[in-house]
């Protein structure tokens, strides 16, 4: 495999089992600083699980995860956060009874960002949460909760950001808006891994994609190429898909 010098994250032969079921079955890929990497694949192929392992929620049952060449497999989440890894959740998990502002305050106070993070005001402003700043998170709708989840992650100033279906449920205008934000983040040198099912969106923002199936990668490269690979079409895109 190609080891690019700039790459920040390396995943090699990752295995995660639930009972007898292999959710990850030898997954390998890498991501470089400033890169937006797409992680796609059919439902249940292990995308969320790989994010869970990389972000320390699950310890891997096999294989290796390294950040800057240092192995981080099995390290507790909060330590990974301090090392510069963060994520959003497919089903957003804000602190429901705390206000939006308080939600962000926690991450600002405990994230130990290496570079000074933006202020809560700036973050809320940028991600359209100012209006609801003093409402409890339980009163936000799904998309707002997702934005709050993202802001929570950004408040810790990650070097590696894992986005789990952040864009699901956004309309096309909003997709344009969020993709511009994500690109801008990558410009700052953040490595971003995007899990998404909307091919148009992936096409728009990623440099490279990994296509997963049954816990393994089955393709790595440009999306434009991927959509022509028969195996990808068969398990993921279906029929006569055009990106």
């Amino acid at each position: 495999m190609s080891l690019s010098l700039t790459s920040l994250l390396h995943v090699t032969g990752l295995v995660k089992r639930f009972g007898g079921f292999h959710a990850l079955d030898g997954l390998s890929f890498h991501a470089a600083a400033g890169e937006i990497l797409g992680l796609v694949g059919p439902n249940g192929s292990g995308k969320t699980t790989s994010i869970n392992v990389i972000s320390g929620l699950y310890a891997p049952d096999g294989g290796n995860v390294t950040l800057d060449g240092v192995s981080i497999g099995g390290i507790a989440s909060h330590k990974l956060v301090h090392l510069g890894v963060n994520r959003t959740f497919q089903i957003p998990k804000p602190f429901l009874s705390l206000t939006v502002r308080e939600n962000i305050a926690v991450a600002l106070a405990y994230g130990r960002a290496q570079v000074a993070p933006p202020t809560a005001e700036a973050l809320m402003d940028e991600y359209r949460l100012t209006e609801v700043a003093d409402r409890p998170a339980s009163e936000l709708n799904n998309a707002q909760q997702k934005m709050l989840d993202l802001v929570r992650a950004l408040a810790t100033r990650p070097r590696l950001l894992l986005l789990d279906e952040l864009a699901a449920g956004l309309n096309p205008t909003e997709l344009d808006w969020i993709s511009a934000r994500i690109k801008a983040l990558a410009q700052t040198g953040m490595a971003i891994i995007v899990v998404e099912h909307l091919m148009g969106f992936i096409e728009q923002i990623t440099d490279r994609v990994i296509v997963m199936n049954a816990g393994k990668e089955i393709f790595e490269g440009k999306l434009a190429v991927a959509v022509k690979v028969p195996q990808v079409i068969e398990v993921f895109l279906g029929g006569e898909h055009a990106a």
Partner: protein
Amino acid sequence: MPPDNFLMQASGVNAGYGTMRVLWGVDLDIRPGETVLLLGANGAGKTTFLKTLVGLIEAREGAITLAGQDVTKMRSSDRMKLGMTYMSELAVFPDLSIEENLRVGAQALGHANPGARAEELYGIFPVLRDKRRAPASSLSGGQRKMLGIAKALAAEPKLLVMDEPSAGLSPLFVKEVLRVLSDLQKRGLSLLIAEQNIGFLEVATRVSVLEGGRIRFSGTVAEMTDNEALRRAYFGLK
């Protein structure tokens, strides 16, 4: 037009949470066999409207009729007995197995043979069959969505109300879901779908657009695509 020709009719619906008002006099109707797509930006109030319709949120003003009956004050369980099911954003019972989720979906409205119904649904979503004994909480996001759709279909409703059925589904499955829905449509199922995925225009007979809690547009798909501004805002066609 006689009122009983409307399968569902909502007129002047106001609703909200606590002191906040979200819906401002929403009118919407669905005739038998129709598929209405409800579009709208985030926070426009789509979910709120659907919930008000099925009775999970109380309508503060306005009236809702279902199959000719005024259901505005009716509890959700009674409304659904009239032949309506709802696929929520949560969509599943996490502690129950896949199979039990399907059975509950069927039994909630008194389906005669939930077991057989579950089998039929596995035919549509084979992934679920493989995990039939697993708790729904172990499913991936997309698998949950599938289960949610299957569960809502389990009771064989006349009107199916869905909140973002495609979010989180891989392209292959979106196609699969569209195929299933158009099949059911042919058999007379009516649909009300809040969606962002324009792929669903394929199955829609009408489109309504919510903006800031008010209906901004209501018409056929063709009428909508003719409208430049709407097309730009909601279809993302550049």
